[in-house]
């Protein structure tokens, strides 16, 4: 089924569409940080308290999608290099845009970002103290839960983390601009009349994803460097300015 060159393109498209959907859901989750500590903490806790087969089932689907997407991309790129061993003395590009020509580069950096991101927030290896950030704010009962809100604020107070995050989201935006519309082309679900609409949808989707993800670190950085004169202290309460494990623990 997937052995031919077109079969590999179907794998790219199908694994890609899973990831396209995932980033939208993840973005919607992140934006709840603006609804306050209680909202995002209880949302994060409800995700972690899903029945184990739902939680691990989704994680398995996402991990498979990433592995299939990355492995198929590598295999396609190697075949493509072999198919065109000699380059022209003058290499002309008439129509292809920046994003479409650099899917391998943007994809690799996004993959590196995803690994860093999982180590940072999910596995918490980079800052082990995140595991100590527990609170009862947003907990359905009186038991302590992970303080996702403080983890986000503290994470983005690090300039390196914020900049890497925003750069990765920009590359994701460029990756999606070509990738999302390519899904329809590779699976053959488009026609001349739909081409422009799908391309527009793809570009709009890419920028919405970029804006939705980047606004969180941008807001934290704006707060840190006092870029605006006034703040809504309910979003970034003063107690969150220097979140330390000790502070959050009390």
């Amino acid at each position, binding site marked *: *089924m997937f052995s*031919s*060159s*077109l*079969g*590999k*393109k*179907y794998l790219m498209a199908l694994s890609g569409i899973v990831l396209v959907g995932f980033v939208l859901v993840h973005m919607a989750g992140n934006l709840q940080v603006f609804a306050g500590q209680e909202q995002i903490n209880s949302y994060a806790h409800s995700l972690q308290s899903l029945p184990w087969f739902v939680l691990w089932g989704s994680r398995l689907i996402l991990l498979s999608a990433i592995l299939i997407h990355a492995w198929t991309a590598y295999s*396609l790129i190697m*075949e*493509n290099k*072999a*198919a*065109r*061993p*000699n*380059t*022209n*003395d*003058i*290499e*002309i*590009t*008439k*129509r*292809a845009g920046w994003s*479409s*020509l650099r*899917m391998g580069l943007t994809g690799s950096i996004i993959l590196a970002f995803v690994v860093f991101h999982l180590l940072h927030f999910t596995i918490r290896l980079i800052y082990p103290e995140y595991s100590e950030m527990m609170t009862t704010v947003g907990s359905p009962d009186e038991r302590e839960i992970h303080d996702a809100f403080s983890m986000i604020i503290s994470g983005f107070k690090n300039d390196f983390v914020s900049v890497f995050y925003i750069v990765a989201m920009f590359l994701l935006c460029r990756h999606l601009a*070509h990738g999302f*519309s*390519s899904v*329809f*082309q*590779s*699976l*053959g*679900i*488009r*026609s*001349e009349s739909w*081409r422009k609409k799908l391309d527009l949808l793809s570009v709009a989707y890419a920028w919405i994803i970029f804006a939705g993800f980047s606004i969180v670190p941008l807001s934290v950085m704006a707060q840190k460097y006092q870029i605006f004169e006034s703040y809504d202290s309910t979003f970034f309460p003063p107690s969150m300015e220097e979140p330390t494990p000790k502070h959050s623990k009390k």
Partner: protein
Amino acid sequence: MKLTLKVWRQDGNDSDGRFENYELDGVSEDSSFLEMMDQLNEQLLSQGIEPVLFDHDCREGICGTCSLTINGYAHGPEDSTTTCQLHMRKFRDGETITIEPFRAKAFPVVRDLVVDRSAFDRITQAGGFITVRTGSAPDGNALPVAKSDSDKAMDAAACIGCGACVASCKNASAMLFTSAKAGHLNLLPQGQAEKDKRVLAMVSAMDEAGFGNCRNYGECSAACPKDISLDYIAKLNRDHAKAKIKKFFS
């Protein structure tokens, strides 16, 4: 016009190629690109130098025999034009023109600018036909064909099989050619009986020939002298997926 021609010379597919510079004076602006090449060869012959080999036949833009990558463009910088229909008035006096063969692993160099495009013939032989009873011609109006279908089929059938799509593709993919050759038959009632078999066989022949994979850049369509649309690639992707699924469940 006085021109400097930077021409690719190669003895055969196994030997290394190189560029040679030739000065050519007295070129008429009204001559075609191939007439200019004829003029160059006459000059080389008179100097006792082996003439430059290049493919040509009808010189009317309909046979698909001429090739050449001119200043990085397959068939030269003019849109919707074959090399034989390109005129020297499109170039400047004193210009250096780089002339290279169509580069792809599946198009081995025969000599100089001549490449072997028989991989295209093998794709067509695999399924680019319909099986019909020979003998007296059937009545022209016996099979009703919708105007929109016949228009689309004609647009795909306009493919002259020159290989500019492969030469302009960064991955030397033959998807535009294969999709046009499969598409014009798959759109018509006469092509329905063998549609699935045709698509599977043609894609296999394409893969076996060593062409690269489509990455939806659109460079092929931009270089195509007959302006074949990327929609035929989407249609091939769709028809191939349907054929694979039907085969899987049969």
